[in-house]
């Protein structure tokens, strides 16, 4: 077959550049003083500082986990700087016009100009540049509907009761090593609250960028959908080309109360390292949603093409009766990328349902694992799960692995797990070639067909972007 892995590995990273903005950065290292400093910088209330310190003390007693099917050099947590803010923070921009033009340029290079975004079909953007949110748009329209959408640091000031009630209620501080680290040092992220019965008038989106060299980014996102509400949240990210590994340990918490729905979509295209596996982002993320109320629904959709190492399991705790959890994922590993990703569906309530569709594409020296857990509790009468995870292998150096855990404790539950692994078949390619389709287009077509079930779940803006991303990522796959 003429798809040569070496061509794939040679694919350059399009979004690699560095924006030169003065940064106020803490010296590397982590101790209680650093946490106090971060907390003081953000003018946080005492309970939050206490909460951070508690997390930090937990973290000190924890071991970095090594069960994932990935390999990397040990991370020196003391060589990371835990705080970086653009200088212009002091006189925070009131509108887009006040935003540093270089910053805006950065987004334009990424193809997400804020100005255009503003005019585009109702997408509000809370752009995170390193650790501090600098521009938030469409606030007013959201405010009209009663939706709160703001940086979490602002929410701490303006809506402390909400934050205090829900922060850490899905992912506790001591949940895991990286979540504990995040709880101790998170600098910013998004906060969303959709009040009772409100259908959020637009899709909310955040673009993350890691920019300052040697700075880990610790995002904290908290989304609360009150009874009968609906919200769709989009998250996308690219990062500049760097040689040093950058750690990204985010925590995302979703809470859906009775009859509420949350749809969370991600397109992740961080710097994957060069063709020799040097550099790239370490993406160790804890994402978890809880369907707390009856008939609530949480849906995760992700397209993961970037990062040197991805370690991420967006999960649903289906606590409310008749609640629904969904997970749709496309992950691409090429060059020396490694991904260990999947989901957890914890069925606790009666008649809870979950669907898992995971599509993995592995090329070059990429190593990819699906790791999932479906647990059906004793009380989860009539629970239902369907899992499908397929892998597509391109090249004889790559790997695709599946580790599904299934634990069923209720006799009326039904669960199915299916997985297949194959390569792009010569027959399919030949068929396309015989009809005059170029080999590259044929591969794209086959890959897009393979991913269709997941792309269909993405909001329209993202579906287009995801399709393009796959094509760009697989460019040069044909020699």
């Amino acid at each position: 077959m003429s798809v040569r892995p070496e061509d794939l590995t040679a694919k350059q990273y399009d979004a690699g550049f560095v924006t030169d903005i003065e940064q106020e950065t803490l010296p590397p290292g982590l101790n209680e003083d650093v946490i106090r400093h971060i907390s003081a910088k953000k003018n946080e209330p005492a309970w939050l500082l206490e909460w951070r310190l508690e997390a930090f003390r937990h973290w000190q007693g924890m071991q970095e986990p090594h069960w994932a099917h990935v390999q990397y050099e040990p991370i020196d947590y003391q060589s990371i700087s835990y705080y970086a803010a653009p200088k212009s923070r002091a006189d925070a921009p009131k509108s887009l016009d006040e935003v540093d033009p270089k910053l805006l340029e950065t987004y334009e290079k990424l193809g997400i100009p804020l100005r255009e975004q503003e005019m585009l079909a109702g997408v509000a953007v809370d752009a995170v540049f390193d650790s501090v949110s600098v521009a938030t748009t469409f606030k007013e329209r959201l405010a009209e509907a009663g939706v709160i959408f703001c940086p979490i640091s602002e929410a701490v000031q303006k809506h402390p009761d909400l934050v205090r009630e829900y922060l850490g209620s899905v992912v506790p501080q001591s949940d895991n090593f990286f979540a504990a680290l995040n709880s101790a040092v998170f600098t910013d992220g998004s906060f969303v609250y959709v009040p009772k019965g409100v259908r959020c008038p637009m899709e909310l989106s955040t673009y993350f960028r890691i920019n300052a060299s040697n700075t880990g980014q610790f995002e904290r996102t908290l989304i609360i959908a009150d009874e009968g509400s609906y919200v769709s949240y989009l998250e996308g990210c690219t990062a500049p080309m760097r040689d040093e590994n950058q750690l990204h340990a985010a925590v995302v918490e979703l809470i859906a109360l009775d009859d509420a729905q949350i749809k969370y979509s991600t397109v992740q295209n961080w710097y994957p390292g060069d063709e020799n596996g040097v550099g790239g982002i370490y993406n160790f993320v804890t994402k978890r949603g809880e369907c707390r109320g009856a008939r609530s629904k949480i849906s995760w959709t992700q397209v993961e093409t970037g990062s040197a190492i991805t370690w991420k399991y967006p999960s649903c705790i289906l606590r409310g009766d008749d609640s629904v959890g969904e997970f749709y994922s496309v992950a691409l590993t090429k060059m020396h990328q490694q991904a260990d990703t999947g989901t957890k569906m914890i069925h606790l309530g009666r008649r809870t349902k979950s669907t898992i569709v995971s599509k993995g594409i592995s090329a070059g020296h990429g190593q990819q694992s699906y790791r999932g857990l479906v647990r059906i509790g004793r009380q989860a009468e009539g629970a239902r799960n369907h899992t499908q995870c397929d892998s597509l292998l391109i090249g004889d150096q790559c790997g695709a692995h599946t580790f599904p855990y299934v634990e069923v404790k209720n006799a009326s539950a039904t669960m199915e797990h299916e997985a297949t692994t194959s390569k792009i078949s010569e027959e399919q390619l030949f068929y396309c070639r015989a009809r005059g389709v170029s080999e590259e287009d044929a591969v794209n077509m086959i890959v897009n067909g393979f991913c269709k079930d997941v792309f269909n779940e993405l909001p329209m803006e993202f579906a287009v972007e995801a399709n393009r991303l796959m094509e760009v990522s697989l460019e040069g796959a044909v020699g």
Partner: protein
Amino acid sequence: MSALIREMRQRGEQLFARHGVPHPRLEHWKYTDIRRAIEPWLADESPETGKPAPLPEDAAFPDIDGLDAYRIRVLDDHVIEMPQELPEGVSVVSLARLLADEDVRAARLLNADEQESLFNGLVALNAARARDGVVVALADGIELERPILIQHVGTARASHLCHGLELGVNARATVIEQYATPDQVEGFTNVVSRAWLGAGARLVHVRLQQESMARMHIGRLDVCQHRDSELSSHAIALGGRISRLDLVVNLNESGASCELNGLYLTAGRQHADQHTVIEHRVPHCRSREEYRGILDGRSRAVFNGRVVVHEGAVGTDSEQRNANLLLSDRAEIDTKPELEIYHDDVRCAHGATVGQLDEAQLFYMRARGLSDAQARELLTFAFADEVLARLDVPAVRGLIERLAFAKLPYAGGELDAMLSGLEAFA
């Protein structure tokens, strides 16, 4: 004891000292905790100094109706009966004799390595303590028509046994390992069986574990397959308070194929754990696996099927299925079908299901006049029988069917009665 054997024993002890009794913090023992149950049976008892078990006069070895086999009987860890006449080219000796006469062959069986011990420290314990076992060897080209039946019955103590099966080029054999310690008898069975299949050899291996519900059973079957050899394995787990089988198949040369069939039926407070590993090390091998489980009472079963396709294993063809039926709300199944693939030119699929009887099938039968209980009984049995149908030794299949049926929680418990009851509808 020869120096070589002493070395093997010592290594076993060392590895066991290092890895110890497996515990749930080990990934492969996540769902199975044997620490407390094994404690009474761990008392140090080196194989050379341990006293032979007293042989009770009424040691009941079961008979398998209609099976004409070369029969070997093992009581605790002593081979007490050997077949009288064997065809030319077939040798059956006890491990005890090999230990005395042919230490090189014995050492091969007691050769626990680091990897195995990491997976299950009791393999190392077995290497250190196995006193006896059955070693079957078939010369090249020998096709054994009658099966070899190895029956084991234990008393309330620990039996460490080690069996060897060596099949020469193009040899063929059927080997049945039956563990039939009668009910109520406590104790601990720790068996390691190692099989080598020469080029073109074919082995049908049946492992029928119907031990006492008070006993702990830990087993390992390790198979190395050479070019174009075929393995057909049937692992049946019915008994044991806690049971565990690690089945490891190494497809070491091209063209080798294996078919693993498994059935586990649990009830009461039983805990049954089946781990299988299929290593596709070379191009063009084929593996098929189907395990089914029926769980009742407060029992718990574990299935972990791992298929590894190594780099360069072009043209691997692998399929794995695990299906489970939960009959009780207090039962628990933990299943994990794993795939690890390091090559692109492969065709691998796996699947796992947990569910109930099909309502449409039940309705079909009810509509034809069967009672609800009859319909359920029949469908549950059919669910299990789908795996047994691939066993081509009618006498053994019949026995397993009767045993399995008797274990299902329906009235009667007699397969023949159920079948004759159905004749009215034929």
